[in-house]
C-alpha cells in the first residue's frame, strides 16, 4: 500500500538520494535531464561506476524540496528504465555521508602558520606545499568542509574543489 502518512508541508528540506543505475550510454543525462526538465534542484552530484563486472554506476544526489517534491523525485528516478534502486538516506535509512575537498590557500607569515594549525585541527592534510601556498585535502561531512572553508577565507583562500557527497548505509546490508 502506498504510504500516505507523510503530511503535506511547504517546508523545504535537504535530502541525499542514491541511485544505482546500469552504466549505459546517456544514463547520467537521463538523471540530470529529469532534474532540469521538472525543475528540481541539484546541490551536489557524484557519479562513478562501482561494479565494473555488472556495469552499475552509483549516482549520489543532494537535493532540496518540500516532502511532496522529494517523493516525486524518488518516484521519477525509479521510473527511469536503467534504474536498479533508489534510496533516500535522509528519511529511510541511516547512512554515512562523506565528501572530499581540495582547498588552496596562499599567504605568508602568521596567516600561513594559522592555516596549517587549523588544517591540523580539521585533520586536513597538505598535499601540495610551496613557499607561498598549501593545497589541503579534507574529508568529512559537508558541514565540516563548509566550516573549514569559512576558516580559510581570511587566511588567503584561493580556490576550492569539492567532490560532492558520497553516501553508504551503516551496518552489514547494502542499500
Amino acid at each position: 500500500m502506498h504510504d500516505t502518512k507523510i503530511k503535506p508541508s511547504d517546508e523545504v528540506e535537504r535530502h541525499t538520494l542514491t541511485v544505482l543505475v546500469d552504466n549505459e550510454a546517456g544514463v547520467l543525462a537521463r538523471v540530470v535531464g529529469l532534474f532540469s526538465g521538472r525543475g528540481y534542484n541539484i546541490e551536489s552530484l557524484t557519479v562513478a561506476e562501482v561494479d565494473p563486472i555488472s556495469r552499475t554506476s552509483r549516482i549520489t544526489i543532494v537535493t532540496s524540496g518540500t516532502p511532496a517534491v522529494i517523493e516525486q523525485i524518488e518516484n521519477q528516478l525509479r521510473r527511469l528504465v536503467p534504474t536498479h534502486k533508489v534510496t533516500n538516506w535522509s528519511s529511510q535509512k541511516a547512512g554515512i555521508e562523506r565528501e572530499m575537498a581540495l582547498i588552496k590557500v596562499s599567504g605568508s607569515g602568521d596567516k600561513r602558520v594559522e592555516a596549517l594549525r587549523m588544517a591540523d585541527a580539521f585533520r586536513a592534510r597538505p598535499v601540495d606545499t610551496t613557499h607561498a601556498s598549501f593545497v589541503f585535502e579534507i574529508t568529512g561531512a559537508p558541514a565540516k568542509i563548509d566550516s573549514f572553508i569559512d576558516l580559510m577565507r581570511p587566511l588567503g583562500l584561493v580556490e576550492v574543489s569539492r567532490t560532492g557527497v558520497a553516501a553508504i548505509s551503516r551496518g552489514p546490508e547494502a542499500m
Partner: protein
Amino acid sequence: MAAMRQGAETPLYLWCNYQHWIFEETVMDKDDTLTLGATAAAETLTGAQMVIRALKDQGVTHLFGYPGGAVLPIYDALFKANDITHVLVRHEQGAVHAAEGYARSTGKPGVVLVTSGPGATNAVTGLTDALMDSIPLVVLTGQVPTHLIGTDAFQECDTVGITRPCTKHNWLVKNVNDLSRVLHEAFDIATTGRPGPVVVDIPKDVQFQTGDYHGPQAIHHRTYRPKTDPDQAAIVKAVEMMAAAKRPIIYSGGGIINSGPEASKLLRELVDLTGFPITSTLMGLGAFPASRPEWMGLVGMHGTWEANHAMHDCDLMICLGARFDDRVTGKVSSFSPGSKKIHLDIDASQINKIVRVDLGIVADATKALREIIRVWKAQQHKAQAEGLKAWWKQIDTWRQKKSLSYRNSDRLIKPQYAIDRLYALTRDKGEVYITTEVGQHQMWAAQRFHFEEPNRWMTSGGLGTMGYGLPAAVGVQMAHPDALVIDIAGEASVQMTMQEMSTAMQYDLPIKIFILNNEYMGMVRQWQEILHGGRYSHSYSEALPDFVKMAEAFGCVGLRAERPDELDGKIKEMLSVRKPVLFDCRVDPTENCYPMIPSGAAHNEMLLSPDDGGEISDAGKMLV
C-alpha cells in the same frame, strides 16, 4: 544459453555488458537441455535485415515512414518484405500521429521508420504527444555512420539527446550484435507498464554490417520490472471505502483504455455492482457507454455541470487510470475538498503528484479492477443504498441545468448543431472512429459525440497538438479499412498537417475530414474574449484556402455546408462517398465552448454561457 555461446564469440566488453542477464537466465532455466525455445541458434543477418526480421517477429503488419539517406539500407530490406505494409506519409510528424491513431484504435504498438536529422526532429512533436498520452510507439531513426557521429555530418543530429525527454526510453545502437536485443527490448518497454514511445537510433554502417540475430524470446531486461499486480491489502481497503461511501464518484481515464478492452468490461461490471455515478477524462471516453444512466459526461474545464459538481461534492473519489491533470482539477486547493480519494495507476509517480490521495494502488487497471470486483463479491458488500439514493437525486438536480444546451439558429450553423447532426447521421454506420484536432471543435466533439466502446476516440489530450487528427485518421483507417473514420477538425488545426490528404489518396483511405470552419483559432479567440478584453490578437485567419478546391487538387472530394438546412444533405453525401472528403462546414464564428471552468477557478464555479460573465483572478490569468 545462446547468450552464453554468444558471449564466447563476443568481445569481452560486450560480454560484460550481458553478464548480468546471462546469469539470471541461467538460474531461470532449470532444464539442462540448453538448445530449446529461447535458446535457438542465432542467425546471421545484416542490421537492416534484422530490423525487418524483428518487426515480423513482433507481429508488425504496418509501418509508417519516410525514407532518406540514413535509412536506405532498411528501406532496401523492406523492398523485399511482402508482409509488412509501409505507409508513405508526407511529413514525419504525420507518420508519428498516424502510428498513434493506429495504436489507439488497435491496442497494438504503432511503428515508425524515419531518417536521421530532420527526419528525427520532425518526429519530436509526435513523440512528445505519445509520451503525454501514454501511447505505445516504436520509432526507428536512421543515423549517420558511427565514424561520423559528432562531426556535424550532413543530416546529423543528436537524436537520442533530443528525444531523451520525450520518450519512455531510447537507444543508439553502435554494434550490430546489440541490435536485435535492443529492438525486442524496445517493443517490450513501449507496450508494457505505462505504455509510451521509444526511439531506436541506428547508424547507417550498423545497418550494413552483419551480426547475430536473436528472436524476441531471449529478452530479460536487467532493470525494467513494471509492477502490474495490485497489493491485496490496498484492494481490500479500497472495497471497504467504496462500501462505506454515501456520495461516491468514479473518475476514469485513459489508463482503462490502455489496459485493454477487458478493463472497460470490468469497469462496466463495477458500475453494475455498485450503482456509482461515473465521469471520465478526455482520454477515457468510450471506456464506459455514454448511453447508460450512470454516465455523467466529460469532467473538467469543459465538462458537464453534473460531472464537475459531483466531483466537487463527493465523499469518495475513485480515480481509475487518470492523473489529476490541470484540465480536470481546476484550482487544486479547491479540488473536491471534502472527499477521500483512491487512485489506481500503473505508474507510481502519478500517485500524490498533484493531489494527495488517501489510498494509492499501483497496478494494471485490468488486474486491479478484477480484484476489486472479486473482493466486493466475496465479502458480499452492498453500496450505501440510502446515501446513494440521495446522491443520485442531487445529481439529477444538477442534470436539470442541461449544461450542454445552446441557442440554435436557423441562419448560421452552430458548431454544436453540426456535431449533433454528424453524430445522429452516423449512428447506424457500425464501427465509427473519431479523431480530432485541438481546440473548440475538440471539446464540442468530446461533449456531444457519444461513445459506447473503447478505442473509438483518438484525440491529443496531454500535449494538445493541433494537426493530430488528420494523420491519426490515416493510421486508424489503415488498421480498420472498412470502418467509418472521421476527423472532427478546425480549419486552423487541419492546415498544420493538411499534406497527409495526399497520403490518404495514395492508400485509398476514405477518411472524412469534417472541418468546423469558424475562421478563427476558436479557443484562442474564446480566451481573448474572456481574458484579454476582446483584443483578438492574431487569432483570425484572413486568407483561408478554399477547402473544396483544395480537396479537388488532392484528388479528394470537397463539400461545403453554409446553412443549417443544407447540413444533413451534405453530411449524407459525405458518408456516401468512398473517397477522402474535406468537408468545409461554415459555422458561427463567434460561438464559445461552454460549460467552462475559467482558469484558477474551482469545479463549482463554472460558466454556462457568456451571460455568466466570470471574473478571472490575476492568478488565473497566469495559467494556460
